[in-house]
């Protein structure tokens, strides 16, 4: 991957992340921590790519481990965040 373009993407993504958080009220900090925790669960995609190319048993084992961990990050992060935010929803009614 072109390192220069990647650098631009890094820069823009960092700016985006900063902007998203910058003006958030304190009461949403915990759900947002949990929500961003969910988002990096996309690492499961990377893990799937690697397991999909694994050809030795060791690589397969690590790949299995990686996919399971990544899936847990994504699934757990979603459930926990959704539960917290569902309460915020109720609160406003």
């Amino acid at each position, binding site marked *: 991957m072109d390192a220069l373009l990647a650098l631009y993407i890094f820069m823009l993504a960092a700016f985006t992340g900063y902007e998203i958080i910058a003006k958030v009220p304190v009461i949403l*900090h915990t759900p947002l921590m949990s929500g961003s925790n969910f*988002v*990096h669960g996309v690492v499961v995609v990377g893990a799937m790519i690697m397991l999909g190319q694994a050809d030795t048993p060791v690589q397969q084992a690590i790949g299995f481990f990686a996919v*399971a961990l990544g*899936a847990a990050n994504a699934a757990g*992060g*979603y459930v926990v965040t959704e*539960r917290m935010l569902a309460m915020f929803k109720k*609160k406003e009614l």
Partner: protein
Amino acid sequence: MTMPLYVQGGWFIGALLFIFGLKGMSSPASARQGIVTAGYGMLVAIAATFFIPGLQNLALMLAALLIGGAAAWISGKQVKMTDMPQMVAIYNGMGGGAAAAIAAIEFAKGDAHSVVTTVLAVVGALIGAVSFTGSCVAWAKLQGVLKKAWRLPAQNAVNVILAVVSVGLGVAMIGCAPAEPVLILGFFVIALLLGLVVTLPIGGADMPVVISLFNAFTGLAVGFEGYVLGNPALIIAGIVVGAAGTLLTQLMAKAMNRPLSNILFTPMVASGAGEAITGTMKEVNALDAAAMMRYAAKVIIVPGYGMAVAHAQHKVWEMTAILEEAGVEVKFAIHPVAGRMPGHMNVLLAEAGVPYDKIFDLDEINAEFGQADVALVIGANDVVNPSARTDKSSPIYGMPILDADKAQNVIVIKRGKGTGYSGVENALFYTDNCRMLYGDAQPMAGEIIQHLKTLG
């Protein structure tokens, strides 16, 4: 490896939905929709991945997805609201572990990469591994599995040595790529050890900040491994989270009035500093406390960390409902750093069903304490300590506090003479208008409810 357009397109849509989802999560009105949007993004990204041509080990992959996903889903559904912080920690650690494992396979395959790629793979592996073991320790501490702060004799020196060795091994791996298996193994062992050793001495109360830091770490690790895999969706999701998490960590450390370096590298001194306090603490029983509130016109409740550990929020809300039925005006006053995570009290009260319009920020409510007949402090301590206003020698000097002492009467529910997070004595407890109601917050709230019912 070049991917077909539909796979790339799926990942792109995933990244787009993540950004919109996170943006939605940053405002209370759209927060719920935000996580759902991000959730769709995840599904699209995962589904697209299955369409990569020539994907091997499909059965293994499905099994891993199912096992990991289901286990986390179920545990996440069942966990109590008060245990949320440790769940966030453990899921985050898993993400870090996955990022490190991706790097491990890259190293094991030993494909030739550019220097930039190898450097980012190594850096991602290092912080991913640290985040993995560190987060596990954070989980264990908050869950109560690990009870005490486990501090080595020359803790900071050990930290530095491990950090230097792991970086050194990383440089070696970059220098002599493809690396020997033993080098790879050594690198990961040291990195995992580093995460353990750095986190073990940190006190449970500091953990939320550390969890937020590791969250940022995992984000960066995912972003870097995304570059290694040539996957922009991973880069964007990872770096966005990395930046957001870094900022969030700083905001938290600032709200606690402790610099981050302090939290990570110095033990919390149970200082006992501050001016000596004269006077006595006066006790009150549950019946009298109930009566005081029943015949008050206005009661302000100040919840704190103690209410959270006692899981007392439901009882407190029940008590509030009875008081309101009886015509008493009840409001909740929330200090920004009450509890152990940002917004902790809001989340708990929301869980118990307390409506939004009864909950007030420090700025909104502080002027009202003067008109309150009773301020009921439940398991809060530092956030109502008047020394923060006056005593320059106190470690919490300068922190804005809730002016509970300005109320006609103050009732404090706590178990005994324990200090709060900062370890300092609280002058409020010794003032004339303050009464102590000793006991665990949950049964004590229950007792008050009983008395209120008999008072009618």
